Every structure is written in C-alpha cells, then in structure tokens.
C-alpha cells in the first residue's frame, strides 16, 4: 500500500532556508544604468565598460532582437508576464576593477563572500576563483601552477578585450543571440561572467569556481560565460549563486557557452540557491567535437521561477553529452528544468538523469528534447526522469520530446512519479525519527545517487539544504 501523505493544515507552506545568503549591504554604486531598457541603456553600459565597437554593435542588434521577440508564454508559465522590464536596473557597479588580492576587495563585498564561505573554499580545493557582485567581478584569482600552463580564467569583460582572438570566434556561436528572448536580453546587457580557455592537452586537476551574488534590489544580473577546452584538455568548473530576499522580484538571466574541442572533457557543476523571488532564466549549451565530452551537473534549489535546459550539441563523431539534474521546488517556487541533446554526428551518446522533488505547493517541470536525425548512425540516448511529490498539493509535469529518425539508433526513456509513502514514514518514525527527519532522510535517499556526482563540499551542503527544506515540510 502506497498512499500519499495527505495534507493537514499544518503541512501547507514551508519556509525556505536561505538564511546563509539572506543579507545585504547598503548600495554604493558609482555606475547605475537606471531603470528600464533602451538604446541609451546599452550605450551607457558600453561607455562604462569601454566596450570595443564590435561589442557595442552586437549589443544594439541584440536589443532589437529582444524587443521583437514575444514572451514564450505559449508554452511556458504565465508567471513570466510578472517580470516588469521597465523597473529593472540593468547595470550596477562601483567602478572598481577586480582585484587579485583578497585584501584589496572592498570591505562590504569581502564580508559578503566571506560569510558565504569564499575564498576559504579556494584555499581548500580550488584552482581559481572569480566572485561577481552585481554586474562586475570583485575578485578573480588563478593559482600560479595553472596560469603557467597557459590557462586563462578572467571575467568576460576582460576576456573580450584582452583575448579577442580566442574569445570572438566562439562568442555567441554556441547560443546565437536570437535563440530565445532571454538569450537576446543577455546579449544586449551582459556583464561579468567567466571566460576560460584551457590550452591543448592541459588537464586542470582542481576545479575552477565562480560565485555570483546579487546585492541590490530591482537588479538584473546578466553574466556571460564562455569556456573553451582545446584539444585533449580537461576542466571542471563550478558555479554557485545566491541573493538576499528583497521585496521586489529580481532577474537573473545568464548565457553560458561551452566548447569542448576534439578529445576534450568539460564538466560544469552548478548549484543555484537564489532567494525565492528571483526569476532565473538561463540559457546553457555546449558543443562537443569529435570524441569530446560535455557534462552538465545542475542543482536548482532556490529562485521563484527557474527555466533552464542545459544542452549539448554533439558535433563530432563519438562525442558525448550528459545532463545530471536535481531540482527542489517548494511552495511559491517553480523549477522548470530539463535537457536538450542534439545529436549531429555518428556514434554520439547522450545521457540525461533528472530528479525533482516538489514540496507543499511547489511545482517542478521536466522538459527534455532529444534529437537524432535520419542520416546518422549508431547514436544512443538514455533519459531517466523521476519526480517525487511530498504533499498532496505538490505538482510535477513531464514534457519529453524525443525525435529519432532512422533505425540505427538506440534510445531509452524512463519516467516515474512517486510519493514518500505513509508506510515508509511510519517505519522511519517507529525507529525514532521525527516526521521531518524521516521525510528528509527519504528525500536524501531519493537523490542520493545524483548527489554523489557533486564534489564533496557541495554534496555535504546539498544534503544539509535538503534537510533544512524538509524539516518544515510536515507538521
């Protein structure tokens, strides 16, 4: 007998623990593009950032594309209509250049990141860190050993100026400006984000990390990340995001482009714990060339609405793409996530494993696209998506779109929806666990195999976050 855990009045809304990230410092912005978006906003950003001409043109073209595209509400949630583009501030910075010395970071920004555990983590196990505060990077550091190998790790502003010959050929090529309304918006007003280049054959042993922090109200953060792993190189990149909870909604709309050249391996790990009034609308895609591998390991715990479908275009023979994803949607949250696997060469392999948990009135949605055209042979895809519903009013939806043409391919799709059964809870409680502890143990068990994919520091944090989220989910 497997029965739903029925709601009693006490099981309705639960508080999301974002206490660790829920604080902000007074703003002191030297540069503020003001509210609303117009060609003048673009020029303001270009002037402050001293963008080269080609970037100014790129931004203006993108603005036109953005304005010309409708909101994708014909398939996505109507909640998107609650974003008021006219009250958002598109660029905020204090005008300081990112420092390489932690001591030189302004005190309030330094304290912000120290409270969030950066850069202790850097000292512990990272090869480099970049920390972005509102629109610009506040701190950026790469350990000497990898710098010596020719690894470039800077923010995108520096990347497009100092390394134009590497940056420009790939910028906007993996995700064209017009891919969707929000990639166009990002292309118009992007600032910050990472630019990484790993030279041929260089295997970066420790992860590089970027940390994104929103400190200001009514602010839109639009970081732009481009990572290029040259032939035979290897890299793991990790990204974390938080914001304090403001009265009004905040917008985070990033574009992340990954390029893995022949035989390269690129792994991108992301844990997002935005406060629950952030619209998190992100476009992420990688290209895997011959025998290369792109892996997205993605965890969405925070935000009001996340729409994010990391993708891999397998462009070269024997390329591999993978998306591993955990989403936790609490009351007031909608995690609309998934994966896109585009097979564009023979013998390419893709794997998608997605697990979502809906708590209270939380809603999780899985959208998966797998595309294998007719002229290819020997392609394989495996998709597994499992949803766990905690309360009777929790919601999950799955929209798989698998297009496989030709008969020389192997695809497999498994989906399940389950509930923590009353019998399981009774069993765990009979052993002395409170209802909250029992629920959090059961939920941790549900995602356990995926949590293992995250580095130790992250997986411990993930388990703790899940426990905190579940503690309040039951009476």
């Amino acid at each position: 007998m497997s029965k739903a855990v029925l709601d009693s009045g006490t099981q309705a809304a639960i508080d999301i623990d974002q206490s660790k990230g829920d604080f902000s410092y007074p703003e002191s912005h030297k540069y503020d593009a003001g509210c609303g978006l117009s060609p003048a906003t673009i020029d303001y950003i270009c002037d402050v950032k001293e963008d080269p001409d080609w970037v100014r043109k790129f931004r203006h073209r993108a603005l036109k594309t953005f304005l010309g595209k409708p909101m994708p509400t014909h398939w996505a949630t109507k909640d998107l209509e609650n974003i008021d583009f006219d009250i958002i501030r598109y660029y905020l910075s204090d005008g300081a250049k990112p420092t390489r010395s932690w001591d030189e970071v302004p005190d309030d920004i330094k304290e912000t990141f120290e409270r969030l555990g950066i850069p202790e983590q850097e000292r512990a196990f990272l090869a480099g860190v970049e920390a972005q505060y509102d629109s610009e990077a506040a701190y950026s550091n790469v350990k000497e050993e990898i710098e010596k190998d020719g690894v470039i790790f800077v923010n995108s502003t520096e990347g497009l100026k100092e390394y134009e010959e590497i940056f420009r050929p790939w910028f906007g090529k993996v995700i064209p400006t017009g891919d969707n309304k929000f990639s166009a918006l990002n292309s118009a007003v992007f600032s910050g984000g990472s630019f990484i280049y790993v030279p041929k054959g260089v295997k970066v042993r420790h992860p590089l990390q970027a940390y994104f922090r929103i400190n200001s109200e009514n602010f839109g953060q639009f970081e732009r990340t481009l990572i290029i792993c040259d032939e035979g190189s290897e890299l793991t990149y990790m990204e974390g995001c938080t914001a304090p909870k403001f009265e009004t909604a905040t917008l985070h709309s990033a574009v992340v482009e990954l390029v893995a050249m022949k035989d390269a391996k690129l792994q991108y790990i992301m844990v997002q714990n935005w406060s629950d009034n952030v619209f998190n609308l992100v476009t992420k895609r990688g290209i895997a060339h011959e025998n290369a591998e792109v892996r997205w390991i993605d965890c969405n715990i925070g935000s009001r609405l996340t729409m994010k479908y990391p993708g891999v275009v397998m462009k070269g023979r024997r390329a591999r793409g993978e998306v591993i994803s955990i989403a936790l949607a609490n009351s007031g949250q909608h995690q609309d996530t998934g994966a896109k696997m585009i097979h564009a060469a023979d013998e390419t392999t893709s794997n998608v494993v997605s697990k979502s948990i809906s708590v209270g009135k939380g809603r999780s949605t899985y959208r998966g696209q797998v595309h294998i055209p007719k002229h290819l042979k020997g392609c394989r895809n495996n998709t597994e998506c499992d949803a766990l519903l905690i309360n009777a009013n929790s919601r999950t939806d799955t929209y798989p779109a698998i297009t496989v043409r030709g008969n020389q391919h192997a695809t497999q799709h498994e989906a399940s929806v389950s509930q923590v059964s009353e019998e399981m809870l009774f069993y765990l409680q009979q052993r002395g666990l409170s209802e909250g502890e029992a629920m959090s143990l059961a939920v941790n068990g549900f995602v356990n195999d995926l949590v293992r994919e995250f580095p130790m520091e992250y997986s411990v944090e993930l388990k703790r976050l899940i426990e905190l989220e579940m503690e309040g989910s039951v009476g």
Partner: protein
Amino acid sequence: MSLVITNLQAAIDGNDILKGLSLEVPAGEVHALMGPNGSGKSTLAKVIAGHEDYEVTGGTVTMDGEDLLDLGIDERSRAGLFLAFQYPAEVPGVTMANFIRAARQARLPEGEEIDAVAYYKELYEKMDQLGIDRRFTSRSVNEGFSGGEKKRNEVLQMMMLEPGYCVMDETDSGLDIDALKVVASGVNSMRSPGRGFLVITHYQRLLDYIEPDYVHVLADGQIVRSGSKELALELEQKGYDFLKEEVPVAG
C-alpha cells in the same frame, strides 16, 4: 515495570477490530500472542506503535506507567518501544548503516554526535551474531532484500536500539528453519530482566526457539485464552477452530 494494555478498542475505516483487549507484559518476560488470521494481531502491533490509520476508540496503553497513546510515533520509539515489522518498508537510496545511525542519533541529546568508530564496531559485532554479510551496511534499507534478510534486519535494528519493550509482528513468517534459529538466538540474547517481549505469531514453531513465559490467544479483537506455553501446543494440535465456542465468554 510493564507494558499494560487495558480494554483497548480500535477501528479502521469505521470497522471495529480491537474490542476491549487487555494484556500485561511485565519487563523480563516473553509473552506470545497467537490467533487466527483477521483476529487483530497486526492491528494491535500497529496501534501500540501509533499508526495513524487506526483510530483508538477506547482503553489505554501504558509503558512503565507512561501513557503511550498520548505520544507521537517517534516519541513512543524513543521512550523505548520497538516494533519489528511483518512487512518492513523499503527506503531507496538510504543505506542500512546510515539508517540505523540516524535512529541512534535521534536518541542522543541535541548537539551530541555519535562516535562513528564505536558505532561501526558494535554494528559489525551484531551483524556477525546474526550472520549478516558486511556488504549489507551499504545496501538501501530493505530494497531487494529477501524475506529472511528483512527479518534479520528487523532483529538487527532491535539489537542496535536496545528498546525496553519489543513487539514482534510475525517475525517468523518467510523464514526457513536455519534463519529462524539465527533470529531466535538474536532475540534470546536480548532477554533480560529489564526488557519485555510481545511475540506475535500464527504458528507454534517460533515458540520452540523463543520460549514464552505466557501465551495468549486473540480472537475477534479480544484475548480469549491465556496460559503457559503448553497452550501453544494445544492450539497446534486442535487448530483455532475450537476457540469459536469460547469467544462469548471472554472479556
């Protein structure tokens, strides 16, 4: 010091299952509860443990003087009540070692942490005693376990949590004779003056290995006969049918 059930009445979905059941299990004794299918044996186990599907419509249950019916499921457990399940639930993704550890942790005062080294030492000793393979610690709770493995697992948890009163619900079902002997010796090793057992079983066989101090017979929600272990043998020979005439006189 005892587990005292007085005139207990309980219903599920409006159907009365327990109809004024009284029973006392003093610490230090083993009481066997026998009865035909549908007599209310498993219901009694679940009601004592606090299962929310059952509504207690009358009577009391106390453990060493404390009113159990007033406590939540987990509070009863931490107060010293253990139920060995007839059908233990599966908990995918949670390893046995972490599960038992979480249960032990739940018994510690706030801020106190389990000593992991001592914990594993004790866990391994008790697993050895029950003939459980070491690899078992990293398997998900009850997932893919055979019937026998599940029952050994219940007894292992019982040994690790050291409860004051153990209610064992048909622990013998699904066990072959060798497994039955191992499980019984585990239970026997736990018998002590401070601990009481209520062993629920359909068959007399288990009582050859776990020797009861008293045997009670349950029929239609009431205890209809109580006696020494010879009563179990009598039931074995005559079957439960002979009880039918006796139902009205009980209570």
